[in-house]
């Protein structure tokens, strides 16, 4: 008799002891009943051992299928030790925005532009005095120092966060 090509051959269906083979059990667990001979299907319905194995096979199949069908989680973070490059583009854009913002004051007072070198010296001197006043302020209380410290910490934290952002975040 010619074997049916759409049916599992007997040597793949049965194992020792008259029980079903792993292949037949997996096929039944996958719902491929049509390729398993009727005698083997009946055996799976009456044999507790084969039924339990079929149950395990069905669960493994459905679990594996669920994992394979599941969308792949988002991109992994950068490998340890690797850091994102300095965001030069963002820095330049921020500087440009700041420059555009200050344009109006230069238009209103163009002399300020020509006086800016002198003004820079004056402002530097003022900043130095402010710094020394701050230093002396330590003796009078930590209030101003705290404000300054917080600002510095915020600035530093911003820089650290920007540098540690994963490169592939937006991919």
């Amino acid at each position, binding site marked *: 008799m010619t074997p049916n090509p759409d049916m599992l051959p007997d040597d793949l269906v049965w194992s020792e002891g008259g029980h079903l083979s792993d292949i037949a059990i997996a096929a039944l667990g996958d719902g491929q009943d049509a390729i398993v001979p009727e005698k083997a299907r009946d055996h799976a319905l009456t044999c507790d051992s084969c039924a339990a194995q079929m149950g395990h096979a*069905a*669960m493994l199949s459905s679990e594996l299928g669920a994992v394979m069908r599941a969308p792949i989680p988002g991109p992994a973070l950068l490998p340890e030790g690797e850091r994102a490059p300095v965001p030069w583009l963002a820095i330049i854009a921020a500087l440009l925005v700041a420059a555009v913002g200050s344009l109006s004051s230069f238009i209103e007072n163009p002399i300020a532009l020509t006086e800016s070198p002198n003004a820079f010296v004056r402002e530097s001197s003022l900043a130095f005095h402010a710094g020394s006043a701050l230093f002396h302020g330590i003796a009078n209380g930590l209030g101003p120092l705290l404000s300054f410290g917080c600002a510095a910490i915020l600035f530093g934290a911003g820089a650290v966060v920007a540098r540690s952002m994963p490169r592939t975040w937006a991919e």
Partner: protein
Amino acid sequence: MFAAAMPELHPAPMPPPFSPDLVREEAAVLEPVVRAVVAAVLREGRKHPDVDDCTNETLRRALEGATRIREGEPVRPWIIGIARHVALDSLRAKKRRRVREAEPAPDSSGDVTSMVDRVADPAPAANEQLAVEQRNRRVRAAIEQLAPVMRDALTKFHIEGKPYVLIAKEMNVPLGTVATWVTRGRKIVASELASGGEDGGTT
């Protein structure tokens, strides 16, 4: 690594057409498999009363929830998943009952904290979610390590939803070869998981 490799695994998802009637039909056909899954989880014979109860409960939930199944979601794994959960719930309930019976009766002071502690939280804990994700990653890695023919056969079956016969025709191999690849491929993945120190089984 997987992000680059895994897209090969699902090149053309082919979800079967969805309809609640399909769930009803499938539920009727699946009764023996549902019973087998429940029996496997409970470690009882197929005729055990608990297996009967869980099988009926599974089919009832499947029929009542037929409209809730997501479009494109394969029905068979969905019902098998319900069977597994119902059986596990039954095991947990049995365990809780045993613990309650072993414990001394609660005092009359009405200790609210201890009562609250006894209420089961149905939501998965964060560590459980992480464990699941870690496990899924390992499954994907194990699949990637399979021989290409095994991976192709599993992909065609699980992702493209093709039956063994069609896979055999497409891959131009005998039906028994496809069945062997699918079975061996799954066993390799399961043993990889088991060797990783976690439960590689499905119960």
